[in-house]
Every structure is written in C-alpha cells, then in structure tokens.
C-alpha cells in the first residue's frame, strides 16, 4: 500500500512538477501570512512583521529546494541537466567529439561484428518453432573402456538412443540424427553429391517442422532396418534439382544407387541442425542402404547419433540431468570401468561438447583480440578527455570552489563520456548491423570449394544488442572515470588563478596518467601487432612452403568404387584398369599412378603395427600406392627400392617407410629387410626407404609413416594421380570425360593436386587477414593517440619552450626534449607488450601451421615498425615545437 502511494507521489511529483512547485509556494506563503498576521496582532508594523516572519522561517529558497529533494526526482532532473550540458559541450568542440566518437565507433563496431558472428555460430537457438524448449544431449565418458566412434566421442549408438527415448520422463520427444553422414551421390542425369542426414522418424515432429509438401516420417518408416526407403527433400534441393515440381511426391530418386521414394519437401528455410545445409533426410533405419560399408544400427557400442530433446513443460535442466543420469548409469553397468556424464545444453548450432570447446576456444581468443582494440580506442578517448579536462580546469575549479560537490562534477563528466560512448556505439553498431549479413554472405561464398558450404545467420538479435549495450556503457565508464576523477582532484588556488600547468618542470598536469595511457596503448598495440606479424609470417610460410614433393602439372581424380557405389572387387578392378588405360592414352598425359589417400588431401589412414624385436604395437599413418607414385611426385628413394610390379600384383606384404620412420624404429641400423607385424601376426618386410615429405600434414613430416603396394585387393578404394604436360584445364576435362564414358553414374572429382594446398592455407589466411586488419586498426588508433598526446603536450608547454629557447636552447634541443618525453612511455609499454606476447605466441604456434613461437622477424621487425610509427606521430608536433619563435612563445597565454 505505502509502496503504491510512494510511487504515486513520485510520479505526480515528476510529471506535475509545476503544480507541485506551485502548491509548495502556496503552502509556504500561507505559513508566512499566518505568522505576519500574528506578528501584527502582537503590535508590530507591517514591515517589521514581515521581516520577523521571514527570520523565523529561514531561507525559503533553500528550504524549498530541500523539500523538492524529498520528492525524489531531483536526480532525474540532474541527469537531464547533465545530458543537456554534455551535449552542448560536445557540440561546441566538434573536432574533439568527432575524433572521440569515431574511435569508440571503431572499437565497438569491431566487437559487435565479431560477437554477431559468434552469436550466429554458437549462441543462437536453432531455427525451429519454440526452440527454447530444445536441448542437446551428449555424453562425456570417463575411465578406461573401448568404444567405436563415427564422428565425435559424445555421440550415441542406436540402442542407447532407444533406451533414452523410451525411459526418460523429461522430454515430450527425443530425436536422433547422424550428423556425419557426409556427401551422398544423387543419381540421374548428372550425378551430384548431396549433404544428407539419417534421422529418427520423429525428427520433424519433435522439431515441429511441418513439411511444405507431402508428409514427413512416421514410426512405421523406422519399424525395422531397411523397411522405409523414403526421403524428405529440402526446399532448396526440390527447387534447384526438381524444378519445384509437385509431382515429385511418390517418385523415386537414387541415393547411393538405392531407390528412395520422395514423400515430402521440408519447409523453405529449414536446413537441418548443423551449420552446413542438409539437402535430404532419410530414416535412420536406412543407414546401411546409404553406407553399405558399415552397419551401425546393431552396434551397441558405436557412437554415431546426436540427440536433441524437446522438454516437457515445467521440467528444469536439473531434472533432465537427474532423470537421464539414471539411464546413463544403467547403460554403464554393461561396460565395466566406464562412467558417463551427460552434457545438456540449450540446442544451438555447434552445440555438442567437442564443438563447443573448439568454438568457444577460438571465440574467446578472437574476442580478446578485438577487446584489445577497444581498449586502445578507450585509451585514446581517455587521453583526449584528459587533455580537454586540463583546458576546462578553470571551469571545474570554480565549480568546486563555490561548493559543487566532487561527486556531482564527476557524475557530470561521466555523463559526457557516456554520451560519447553511446554516440560512438550507436554509430559503430549501426554500420555493423547494416553490413554484417552482406559481409558474411560474401565471405561464405568465397571460401575455397573444398570447404563445405555453410549457412550462418549472423543477423543481430537481442543477444547482440545486449552485448553491444553493456559493452558501450562499460566503455564509457572505462575511458571516462579516470579523467573525471583526475580532473576534479586539483589544487584549487593555482587552477583558479589560471596558471594552468605546464610551467617549467611540472610537465602538464596529468602527465603521469597520460604517459601511462600511452604506455598501455603501446603495450596492447605491440601484442596485437606481433600476433599479426606472427600470423602473417605463418601465412607467408604456408604460401611458399615446399611440401617436399612435386605438385605442378599433376591432376587428381577422386572417386569411390566401394560397395556403396554398387561395385564389387571385380568391377572395381575392371574399372580401374580401363580408366587408367583411357587416361594414359589422353594427349599430353605422361603417366597415371594410384594412391588411396591423395597427398595433402585431408585423408588420413592409420594402422597399428609392431616392429620386429618389440612387443608393443605403434600407431602408423599409411598410404597405399602404385610403384611409380614416388617417382611421379619426385620423392627419391634413400635406400632400397620401390615396389615391383610383381609384388603389387600379388598384394605382397612389403613396405616402404619414410626416412624418419626408419631412424626412429631402428636408429643406426639398416631398415631394409626388417619386418613389422600386424594384429593378425602377418609380417610385412621393408624393401625401401623414401625421402621425407609433407604428404599428410602440411608442415609436418616426422610422424611414423609407411606405404603399402596398391594391389588388386585395394582397387575399390584407390584414386588416381595423373601427370600431364598439357594445360591443367584440358587434362582435367579429358579425365572427367574418360570416367563418364566408363560409368556415367559415378561421381568423379578431378582437380589440380595443388588445390589441396588451399585447404591448408585457408585457415591461416583467414586468421592472418583478420589479425592484420585488427593490427592495422590498433596501429591507427595508437599512433593517432600518440600524436594527440604529443601535440597537446607541446601546446601546453609553449611558454616553457619559449623560455628554453630564450635561454639558448636551439631547435634540435627542443625536438630532442619533446621526442624523448613522447617516446619514453611508448618504449616502456612496448617492452611490456613484447614480454606479454612472448607468452602468447607459444599458444599461437601450437594452433596454426607455420607460426614460429619466437619468430625473429616478427619480434624484431614489429617493435621497430611500431617505434617508427610512434616517432612519426610525435615528429610532426615536435618539429612544430622546434620552430617556435621564442618571442611569440613567451607571449603565449
């Protein structure tokens, strides 16, 4: 009750201030009249009575003020006052205002942009109805156990999924899908690889996604393995491939040479639950039809399914954890030594634990980097404010000396900085909001073609707005507080006298704080620039690295002759034989060689073998190649020989190892003739040692690596390398055509071998460009900061400089003086930055290829560069100082 009444008073006082004021005047007037009347009744004259009444009453203005304060809106009025005053001061100093607002806009804009991207990648809820009810579930295992993986470690097997689905009491629905199906060939006129997903039959129902056409899966489609050869197409596929024909329903399409009946088309815009767009969905029970090499449904201990649940109304995350934990515990009993904890999160893109770790790891590094840019911008604005505060010293001193409270003045100065922050923040974020989607679209369409296509919705949402708002407010306080506190802590008598600092020795008030700010800028800028320098060096190295084998003039044909494509061993052998014959007959083609993994093709094959004389097996990477492979790629044999034709045709148990493998396994000994044995005790003999090269990971060649001969048994998995002295395009087209003649349904990807480097270079290029842009921004801000501070310092010390010159200092002395004082904080900050960066660089070099932790060029070149920029920034004002006319300078006020 009293709360309501108080609010009523407050509101009435606020919105009806004039009336309230009038009433108060009236009330006090009445009081005085009463008193005067009484005084007259006591025999005073009119004037006497009035004065006596006033004396008894006290100062009516002050008392009214005190009364108004009790109404509780003075603070609001003061804020309005501060805002008006701040706006006026900013408008009167357009130069200062524009510089400060632009610096903030830059800092906030960069931060908002990066956060929008992160938000789009990993914070936005899934684009499905009532997405806030959806949670992702994945497992984290502890203990010693064996488990087969098909993708990430947190995924579930089909039997585990059914267990959770049938026995939980917290979800109204729990769906499963295989996120790592990869590309599947769509048969027909011109075969095309499609991204697809195998899903549980309640997939669309749990997501509440209605089809645009036809129906979605029903439980009967999933009742047993292989019974539901049905498919739901994405709207985009339906339009691009099937001309949006409604007759598509009921017809069948060929996926991996299995016929699937089209039963529906998903709603426009629905692209699945991952950042890469899905083009079709089939029941999870059709897994073997799409991937004939594996049969995952009956494998109880193989993780391949991602789980998403729709929460029953009113159930908390805690209850979900508890309920599912019981089921997890029961499953664990079948696997002694294993304990499972479940990670349950609001469902987003990239929401599974392993993905989150990567995304949040990268995200925090990038956010830290853009945060540093903002910090430099803050230091800049703080410095500008400090300089201005010195100019306003007299005003502030007068306000303080006539009784303005320090807090009140600090608040007024802070209001001004917040005003700048919000102007800058609005400008920066508006530009970002307006452009970010276009930028993202441009970047995503310009990724190299091997990188899967991505859909990211980076449009701003309340997350981004909130982030920007909080960041802007923080920014305003960060750059405004120190100058405001500094400006109000001053020696009143000197300030009022107008002897505003800068006279001999006492190097401008706030000099220490200003130097510190410049030092911080230099340090932060140094960190960003060295990081950028290291990354650029890394980029340079990846662009120019010699992987140790020949790539020029070589084309690669990638295809899959596994049973998935309807091939058996005999078919595959026949295809390979004819394909090679056709290709070798092409004009300009020198030779064609087979290999299972293309060099640097992002395919990694691993096996466990036990070297002779050892008991423990070791992990090897391997490739399967035809005898001429080494010669074609220019990898010389260091010892022994390559495989013979006879060995190859007989699938002989012979191996070629790399130099470092031989050195590590048999240091000092002769590897030729040594043996390795596999799990089935089969012995493989080493016949040759080949020179090191980076065939698997760019930048690394030191893992245990061996080659096996490409015999008849391997024909289903081999791909082709072709060397030609014809033009690349002609060769590639000719190879494609040769394959099409042999099998029009087979998808054969033919590219230049050199294109494989792109995949390795793209990440470091993106990072290098990003860090280069950030470094440039940092440098721009920092050098404009240094320039501003030095210019200001010079303008404050004109009289001092004049005296020095009158006493005999020449232009050089003055310039030396100014430069020395300007560069000292830069050097100190820079050294701190270098030390800080030495710590960071180790992290970078672990993450990115080719980045040396202590690259001398980055660590010497960048500081010199920064110093040169700082020198340049201070040289201009220093020169102005050195050319001062002493007479003029002495007169300067």
């Amino acid at each position, binding site marked *: 009750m009293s709360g309501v009444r108080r609010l009523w*008073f407050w509101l009435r006082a606020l919105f009806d201030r004039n009336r309230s004021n009038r009433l108060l005047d009236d009330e*006090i007037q*009445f009081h005085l*009249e009463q008193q005067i*009347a009484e005084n007259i009744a006591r025999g005073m004259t009119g004037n006497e009575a009035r004065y006596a009444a006033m004396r008894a009453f006290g100062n009516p203005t002050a008392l009214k003020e005190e*009364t108004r304060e*009790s*109404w509780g809106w003075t603070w609001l009025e003061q804020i309005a006052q501060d805002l008006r005053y701040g706006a006026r001061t900013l408008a009167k100093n357009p130069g200062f205002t524009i510089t400060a607002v632009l610096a903030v806009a830059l800092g906030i804009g960069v931060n908002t942009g990066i956060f929008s991207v992160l938000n789009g990648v990993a914070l936005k809820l899934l684009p499905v109805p009532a997405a806030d009810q959806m949670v992702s579930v994945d497992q984290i295992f502890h203990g010693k156990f064996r488990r087969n993986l098909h993708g990430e470690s947190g995924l579930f097997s089909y039997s585990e999924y059914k267990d959770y689905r049938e026995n939980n009491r917290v979800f109204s629905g729990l769906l499963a899908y295989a996120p790592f199906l990869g590309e599947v060939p769509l048969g027909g006129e011109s075969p095309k690889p499609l991204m697809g997903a195998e899903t549980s039959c309640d997939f669309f129902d749990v997501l509440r996604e209605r089809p645009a056409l036809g129906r979605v899966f029903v439980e009967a489609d999933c009742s047993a393995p292989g019974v539901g050869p049905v498919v739901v197409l994405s709207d985009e596929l339906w339009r691009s491939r099937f001309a949006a024909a409604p007759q598509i329903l009921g017809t069948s399409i060929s996926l991996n040479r299995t016929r699937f009946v089209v039963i529906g088309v998903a709603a426009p815009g629905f692209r699945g639950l991952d950042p890469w767009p899905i083009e079709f969905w089939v029941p999870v029970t059709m897994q073997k039809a799409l991937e004939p090499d594996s049969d995952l449904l009956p494998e109880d201990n193989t993780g391949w399914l991602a789980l998403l649940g729709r929460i029953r109304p009113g159930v908390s995350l805690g209850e979900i954890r508890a309920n599912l934990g019981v089921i997890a515990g029961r499953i664990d009993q079948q696997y002694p030594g294993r304990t499972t904890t479940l990670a349950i999160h609001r469902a987003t893109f990239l929401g599974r634990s392993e993905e989150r770790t990567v995304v949040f790891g990268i995200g925090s590094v990038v956010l830290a980097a853009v945060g540093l840019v903002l910090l430099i911008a803050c230091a800049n604005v703080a410095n500008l404010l400090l300089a201005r505060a010195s100019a306003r010293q007299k005003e502030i001193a007068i306000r303080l000396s006539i009784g303005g409270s320090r807090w009140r003045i600090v608040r007024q100065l802070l209001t001004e900085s917040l005003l700048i922050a919000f102007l800058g923040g609005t400008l920066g974020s508006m530009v970002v909001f307006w452009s970010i989607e276009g930028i993202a679209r441009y970047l995503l369409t310009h990724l190299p073609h091997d990188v899967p296509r991505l859909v990211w919705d980076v449009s701003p949402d309340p997350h981004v707005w909130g982030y920007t708002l909080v960041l802007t407010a923080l920014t305003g306080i960060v750059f405004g507080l120190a100058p405001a506190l500094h400006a109000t802590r001053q020696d009143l008598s000197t300030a009022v006298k107008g002897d505003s600092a800068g006279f001999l020795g006492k190097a401008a008030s706030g000099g220490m704080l200003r130097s510190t700010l410049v030092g911080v800028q230099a340090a932060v800028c140094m960190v960003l620039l060295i990081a950028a320098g290291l990354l650029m060096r890394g980029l340079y190295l990846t662009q120019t690295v010699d992987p140790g084998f020949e790539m020029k003039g070589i084309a690669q044909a990638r295809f899959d002759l596994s049973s998935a494509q309807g091939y058996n061993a005999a078919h595959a052998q026949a295809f390979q034989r004819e394909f090679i014959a056709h290709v070798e007959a092409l004009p300009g083609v020198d030779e064609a060689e087979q290999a299972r993994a293309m060099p640097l093709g992002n395919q990694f094959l691993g096996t466990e073998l036990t070297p002779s004389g050892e008991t423990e097996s070791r992990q090897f990477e391997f490739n399967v190649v035809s005898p001429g492979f080494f010669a074609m790629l220019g990898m010389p044999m260091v010892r022994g020989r390559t495989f013979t034709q006879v060995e190859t045709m007989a699938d002989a148990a012979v191996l070629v190892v790399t130099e470092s493998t031989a050195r590590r396994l048999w240091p000092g000994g002769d590897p030729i003739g040594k043996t390795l044995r596999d799990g089935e005790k089969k012995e493989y003999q080493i016949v040759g040692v080949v020179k090191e090269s980076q065939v698997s990971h760019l930048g690394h060649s030191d893992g245990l690596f061996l080659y096996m001969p490409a015999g008849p048994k391997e024909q289903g998995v081999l791909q082709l390398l072709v060397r030609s002295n014809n033009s690349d395009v002609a060769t590639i087209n000719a190879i494609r055509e040769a394959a099409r003649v042999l099998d029009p349904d087979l998808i054969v990807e033919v590219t230049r071998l050199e294109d494989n480097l792109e995949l390795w270079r793209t990440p470091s290029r993106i990072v290098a460009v990003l860090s280069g842009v950030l470094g440039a921004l940092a440098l721009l801000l920092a050098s404009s900061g240094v320039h501003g501070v030095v210019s200001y310092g010079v303008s404050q010390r004109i009289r001092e400089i004049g005296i020095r010159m009158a006493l005999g200092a020449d232009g050089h002395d003055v310039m030396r003086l100014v430069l020395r004082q300007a560069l000292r904080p830069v050097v100190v900050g820079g050294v701190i930055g270098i030390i800080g960066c030495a710590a960071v660089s180790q992290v970078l070099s672990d993450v990115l290829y080719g980045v040396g932790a202590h690259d001398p060029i980055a660590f010497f070149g960048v500081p010199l560069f920064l110093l040169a920029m700082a020198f340049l920034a201070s040289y201009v004002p220093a020169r102005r100082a050195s050319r001062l006319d002493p007479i003029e300078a002495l007169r300067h006020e």
Partner: protein
Amino acid sequence: MAKPTDLVQGTLDLLILKTVSLEPKHGWAIAKRIQQISGEVLQVQQGSLYPALHRLEQKAWIKAKWMESETGRRAKFYSLTAAGRAQLEKEADNWNRLSAAINLVVQT
C-alpha cells in the same frame, strides 16, 4: 548556519507525528503548537518543518489535504495515517527509553 533541526534530527519527526495525531493541522499550526507545548524551549526553525513534512508524507506516515483554514484561506492540512500511528508509537517508545536512560546517567 546550525539548524535547530540538526540538534533534534529524528525527534522532529516524532514531534510532528505527535502534533498531528490529535487533529489535522497545517504547517504553521504545527510549528506554533510545538513551541507552545514545549514552553518555547524547542525553537524549531519554522521553515525546516516543510522538508520534514514532505518527507513524512512521502513515507505515507502522514497524509495531506487542502482545506479551508480558520481565516477562510485554503491551507494544506496534515493528519496521521495508520502507518504513521504505528510509527509514532514506535518512536515514542524509543524516545522514552532513551530519555529514561539519559536521566539515569545524568542523575547518578
């Protein structure tokens, strides 16, 4: 400028609450009444009554109404609310305890 209210900070509230507890009064009458009852000992600076009155009104311990005064002019009359009555009892208790304690100390 030492305000008399500084001396009796807090007690001024008590005095006002007590004064308006009998019948609605306007500001001048309250000031007058306090002076009379205390035998002119408590020299409340009259003006300082108003911030206090408005503060108490804000706290909803007293309520105000514009009514015609004895002279026929409209004046703002203050009267006690239920919450104010409770507050008055509390503050009166406090005051009694405090003054009794001080009396004890002073008289021994």
